[in-house]
Structures are given as C-alpha cells and as structure tokens.
C-alpha cells in the first residue's frame, strides 16, 4: 500500500498516475457509511485520478493546531471530493441513463446532508463551500425541473462584485491589460471607437477614460466612443442602457468627451455587422472580455458573430481576455471536463482564502453570488458537450480562432507586463503572471492558469502607421 504524497506547494495541477489502494479502501469505507444500499465497487476500479484529488484536498484543509482534528478534516474533505467525483462519474455513464441518474441523485443527497450537517456545527471550510456549489451544480443536471437559478438581487450582485474586485485581481488584470494595450495603440489618435462584446458594468472604460484624461501631452483628451453589444431581451438591453448612462455621467465628471451607443444582437444572438456605425478616421478597437468571474456564459453564436465582425471591420486592435486551461487529457468526456472545472474553481477558492482567510462572510458572498452561478454554468456546459453522439472537442478560445484566422499578434509591452505583475503582487504572492508568447499574458493561481489576455491586430493594416 503506497502512501499518499502530500504536495506542500499547494499545487492543484498535479495529475499523477500512481495508484493508491489506500484511497479505494477509504472510499469504500466512507461510502459504506453513508450509502449502505449502493453497491459501488465496480465504479472505482482503475481510477487514477483520485490521488491528484487527494493531494489537492489535503492542501485545502483549514490548518488546525491539533493533528487529530486535521486528519479528520482531511478525511472529510477527501470524502466530499470522492463523492463529487462519484456522482459525476455516475452521471457520465452513457448506458443505463436512468439508473446512473438515480445513483447520482442518491450520492448528491448524501453530500448535501453531510454539508448541511457540518455547516450547522461551525462555519463551512473552504472545501465544504466549494463542494456545496458543485453539489448544487450537479443536482441541477439530475433534476431537470429544479434549477437553482440566480436569485441574487441587483444590490447583492453589485456588492459581491465590488468585493470580488477588492479581493482578487482577475477583473482588474483583464481590464488593465487590455486598456494598456489600447492606450499604447491609440496614442496618436484623436478619436477612438471601441466595440465592447460584453460591457457588463462598464468598469473597464472608467479606468480607460481616466487614462485618456490624464495624458499629459498638452492636447485635450481624445474623443471616446463605446458601442456595447446588447443581447436580445428586455433586461439585457436595460442593463446595457444603464451602464451607458453611468459611463456618460462618469465621463462628464472627469471631463472626457464620450459617447455611448448600443448594438443589439438579434434573437438568435447574431450580430449584424451593418448595424455598427463605423466612422472614418476613428481608431477602431474591439474588446472581448469573456470568462471573467462576473461574466455570464455567452453563446457560441455570439462569439462567432463577433469574430466575423472583427474580420469584416479590420479593427486597429483586438483585445481578448478569456479563461485559460491546462492541457486536458483526451477522452473520458464529462469526467475529465468536470475535473477541470473542479480544479479551476478550487484554485479560485484557494486564492480567495489565501488572501482573505478571516473574511469568511465576504468570501461566502462572492462565492455564492458570483462564482456559484459560474460553476453551475460550467458544469452544465461540460455535461452538455459530452452529451449526445458527437463529443465536442475542447472549446477553442477566441485567441486561438483569431490566430487561425490570420490576425497578427500584437506585442504586449514591457509596461504592460510590469503592470500586471505589480497588480497581482498587490493581492497575494500566490498569483502568477506569465508570458505565453509575445502577445499573451496568463494570470494564474500558483501553478494553475486561469485567465489569458491576448492582443491582436488586423492583418490588412498598412505598415506606415
């Protein structure tokens, strides 16, 4: 029986393939405690992904003085993870859909029981909080009728959003990297037009406007025009309009010439390029922010639309921020995707806890309001993509699509790199910023990459700029 290796570095990415029979024993024992009616042994043969999860969970345990309690915590966390993976496995079984669904339901019920129980004794640990969200996400896969939905009010969302910005660099990293690239590119222009794929609260442009106003070249600030894409639907349109109003007010307060317009996507989420008003003499920039913690999932259709738009308009600059994942091993469909999502959010949970170990309530709020829905969406996506006959390959990011389409990588400057490093350093030393090629920066937590910022320019630009 091999010993479980503890990875002290808090590294979640390791996916070693050593087998540990101890884990299986422990797992079977644990399951026997809680699901006496289920026969589960065939399911866990040959699982070589558990050790990695074992390693990860041990790192996540809240440190405790007493060794005994710590061991118990370890076990508990382990069990949670095992149960999660078990239910995911159950759901991923192609045959006997009905039966495995039931199995998953039972496991999830037990999970929930356990989590609620422990949360009544004391406040949940990081792992428990994470497990709860994943449990919910998996649940919504089994019970088609029940959807947890996002019941957070607007006020809660804003508060959580503010907290998120204060507690983690994800949003600022994306915004500032893109903004810096934009500033450098339009340094000599008097008019700037930015097409924003997903404006959300418009925070990015507030910072940009400040930059434009503070340029000390003696000239008045250049005129900024922002066109925001608005998804079909009354609420979406209203939100975008509201954001526009706020940005206008902010621009007025700092003396930045600014105008705002929105462009609606049609009901199938497609964008009509002709709807965008393009004025000659403006420096055109397309800004695509995806997968920031507060960005809801956007459809593939809209992604394709924006890329087509980009191809047709040939903007000066294209800034893209999206999620970055580690290389995924092939096969295993839902399970491996699920594991990837699990690891990803483990890293995020870790990063929040490391920076703010005491502020549990604040973290809890951010986790619930912001990340909870993301987890649910990601799990659902992972599930849907493995559903059906054709298993879709790993989703290709916008950066990759632009690359393939022949867009030129635009070098990210030393200033930008400096800024990114400085920024994440403000939060916690666990955040890492790495170059990935001349036009890409990756932000990660410890060794797990999380966000990728890349900058592109159109291939048909004249050389004499």
């Amino acid at each position, binding site marked *: 029986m091999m010993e479980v290796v503890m990875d002290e570095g808090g590294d979640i990415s390791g996916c070693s393939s050593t087998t540990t029979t101890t884990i299986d024993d422990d797992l079977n024992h644990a399951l026997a405690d809680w699901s006496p009616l289920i026969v589960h042994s065939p399911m866990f043969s040959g699982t070589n992904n558990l050790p990695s999860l074992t390693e990860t969970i041990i790192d996540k345990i809240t440190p405790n003085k007493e060794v005994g309690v710590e061991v118990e915590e370890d076990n508990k966390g382990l069990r949670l993870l095992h149960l999660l993976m078990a239910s995911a496995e159950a759901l991923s079984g192609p045959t006997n859909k009905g039966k495995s669904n039931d199995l998953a339901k039972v496991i999830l019920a037990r999970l929930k029981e356990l989590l609620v129980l422990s949360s009544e004794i004391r406040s949940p640990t990081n792992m428990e909080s994470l497990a709860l969200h994943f449990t919910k996400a998996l649940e919504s896969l089994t019970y088609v009728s029940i959807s947890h939905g996002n019941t957070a009010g607007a006020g809660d969302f804003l508060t959580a959003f503010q907290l998120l910005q204060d507690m983690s660099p994800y949003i600022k990293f994306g915004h500032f990297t893109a*903004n810096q690239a934009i500033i450098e590119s339009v340094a000599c222009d008097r008019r700037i037009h930015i097409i924003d794929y997903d404006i959300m609260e418009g925070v990015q442009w507030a*910072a940009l406007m400040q930059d434009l106003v503070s340029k000390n070249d003696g000239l008045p600030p250049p005129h900024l025009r922002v066109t925001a894409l608005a998804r079909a639907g009354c609420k979406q349109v209203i939100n975008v309009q509201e954001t526009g109003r706020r940005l206008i007010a902010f621009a007025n307060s700092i003396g930045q010439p600014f105008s705002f317009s929105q462009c609606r996507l049609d009901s199938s989420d497609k964008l009509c390029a002709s709807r965008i008003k393009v004025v000659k003499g403006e420096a055109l920039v397309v800004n695509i922010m995806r997968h920031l913690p507060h960005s809801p999932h956007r459809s593939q259709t809209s992604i394709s639309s924006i890329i087509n738009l980009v191809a047709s308009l040939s903007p000066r600059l294209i800034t893209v921020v999206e999620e970055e994942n580690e290389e995924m091993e092939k096969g295993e469909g839902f399970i491996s995707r699920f594991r990837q999502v699990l690891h990803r959010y483990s890293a995020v949970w870790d990063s929040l806890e490391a920076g703010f170990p005491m502020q549990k309530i604040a973290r809890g709020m951010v986790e619930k309001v912001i990340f909870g829905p993301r987890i649910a969406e990601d799990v659902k996506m992972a599930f849907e993509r493995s559903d059906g006959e054709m298993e879709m390959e790993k989703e290709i990011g916008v950066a990759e699509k632009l690359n393939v389409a022949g867009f030129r990588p635009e070098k990210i400057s030393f*200033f930008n790199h400096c800024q990114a490093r*400085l920024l994440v*350093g403000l939060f916690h030393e666990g955040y890492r910023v790495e170059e990935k090629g001349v036009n890409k920066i990756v932000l990660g937590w410890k060794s797990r990459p999380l966000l990728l910022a890349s900058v592109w320019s159109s291939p048909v630009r004249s050389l004499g700029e």
Partner: protein
Amino acid sequence: MFLFGKGEIEVGGVYIQGRNKKSKLYKRERQVRDKRERRELEKQARDQRMFHSKKPTMNSHERPMCVQGDSGLVLTTDPKPRLRWTVELHDRFVDAVTQLGGPDKATPKTIMRVMGVKGLTLYHLKSHLQKFRLGKQPHKEFNDHSVKDATALELQRNMASSSSMMGRTMNDSNVHITEAIRMQMEVQRRLHEQLEVQKHLQMRIEAQGKYMQSILEKACQTLAGENSMAGGGSPYKGLGHQGVVDINNMKDLGSPLSFPSLQDLHLFGSTDHLDMHQHASLDGFLQTSDTSICIGKKRPNPYLSNGKSPMIWTDDLRLQELGSGSTCMGSQEEPSKSDQLQIAPSVMDSGIDMDSITDVYETKPMISGDSSGEKKFEGSSKLERPSPRRVPLNPMIRGGALSHTRNISHG
C-alpha cells in the same frame, strides 16, 4: 581627485546627502560613480600624456604600460601581469561564446578550445565569462521575477556587474566603459519606467473605485426605496449562518462600500488605519448574521499580509512630499496620516531590503524634479480634495468613522 565632498553625491544635478545611507546599493552606486569620474579624469590625463612623452602614471592599474607578448596577448606591466581584454580579443571571445550556444552553454574550457589563443588560461576565461554573463543577465532575468523583486534584484545585479566591469574595464578600452555606462542608464530607465507603471496603476485602480462608488451609490438609493417593499427574504437559505444577506441589511452592507477604499487605503499604507477600517466594515457583516466568527482587533491587513506592496513606497514618498503642504485633508486625517508615514515602513517585513529600496526610490522624485512634482500634486489632490460627487455619499454611509476614510480614497 574626488570632485565631491564626503557623503555627498550628485544625482542628475541635484546634490543629495548620502552620508547616512547605510545601503550597500547606494554606496556601490557612489563608488561606481566615483570610479567613473576618476576614470574620466584619467582618460583626460592619458590624452594629455599622449602628446607628451610616456611617463609612468600615479596609479599602477592604469593602462598605458602594456606589453604585447609573442602570444598575441596584451599584458600589463604591473608586478602581477594581468591580461588585457582588447577589443579584438573580446570579439573573438564573444564569437566563441555564440558559437557554443550562448553564455550559459559555453564553458571556459570549450571557449578556450574554440578561441585557440595561446597563453589564454582557464582563469582568464572563467572570470571574463562570469562578467559577460552578469552583463547579459539583467535583461533576461527580468521576465522571471516579479517586479518588486526585480526592482531590487536587478539594481543589485546591474550594480554588481557594472562595478565589477568597472574594475575590469579600468584596464580595457573605452568601448567597455561606454557599455557599462549604457548599462547604468538602462537600469535607471527601467527603474523610472517601473515608477511610471506604479503611478498609472494607482490612478487606474482609483478611477475604477470611483466609478464603482457611483454605481453602488445609485444602487443603494434604489434599494432604499425598495426596502419597504421587499420582504427581505434571503436567497441563500440552507447554508447555515454563512452569508445570510438580505435586502433589509443592504444598508449595513453599505459598509462594504468602504471595501473599495480598502484597496485604495492600502495604497496609502498603515495597518492601524486599515484595521480600524476593516473592523468597521465587517461589523456591518456581523450585523447581518449571527455567526460566531470573531473579528479580532489586530487582524493583519490582508493586502499587507504578504508583506510585499510596492504601492506603499511611492505613496510613502508622495505623502512625505505632500506632508506639510496638504491642506485638503480634514483635521481628523492629519494624525492618521502621520501614522501612515511612520507605520507603513515598519509593516514591510518581507525579504526586500527596505532601506536600499527606499533609498533608491527617494532619489527618484528628486531626479524627476519639478516636472513630475506638479503631476504628483495633481494626481493626489484628485484623491484628497473633497469633490461634489462625494457629498451624497456621506449620508449613505453608516458610521462617521468611515467618512473620513472615504475622503482619502476617492477624489
């Protein structure tokens, strides 16, 4: 032949008392400059000497007395013959190194073989290769370290390499001298650029914070209207006591409005300041739930817990600059500000040599002189001068303690 008095140094035309600085960095920089000056003078002397007969110079490690041996190497004639790395020799060296795949791959032995120069020993090559590597490294290393480490690290490295190069180049041709000087300037430029980055980053963070403030303000206002209507049901049942946040308590959570200032305050330093601040803000949270989470008085500021925060330095400097001049801050802020100035440096307990860094950074504002001084004032006054925008905020915030912090953070 020193042009400067003891303990004084000229930095970009401005005299700074360097006597009491204990930093090695600073001393080395001074040494380097002294050496450079010395060499300039000696160069002049040498030029003069060219017109006169060859007279032995004062310093034995001065150039002109070199003998060209039959091996093709140029050796000096001091008691201990030292190899002189002429331009040609150095070029051959660089060729050999590049042939071998760069300074990291090449070894003295292989270089010796490739160069094929008689009389060249491993010792010569070892030391020359090391200097060459150090000379090349600052540009490469930069990508690996974080900025804050690189600031110190690179400076030290460049100082080390350039000063050692200085010593060596005393015997070498002028080409090496200008190279070393160029490296110096490169370091200076990098430092300056990093300071620029810091300034801009701060400005951007504050702009975002300001914007978020306005959003939250409006949201608070609308929610205040809705308050009477909303039943205050928590959407997050079933999670025990964690995060029972409902609309009724939104006002209390208005204290997270102070959270944005948490970030900005951090930029101004001072744990005490932030502790109190945090305490107040999380009290808001406590009111909403009955958790047993205890918020201690002396909780370390999360932003400073890792001890590394370059933003504090520049703000330290700025505050020092603005110190007496600032009339914008309210009277209640004065004592806290002075606290900030004293406390912030003590908070830095990371591995960075604070003395050296503050020294380095202290010279900078002097160098930038008047041109950026105004900019700084503008930038900071944006933060500190109460603006009409902020007036509606105050009634929204619970607790007077928070209002003055707001003044500091958002302009």
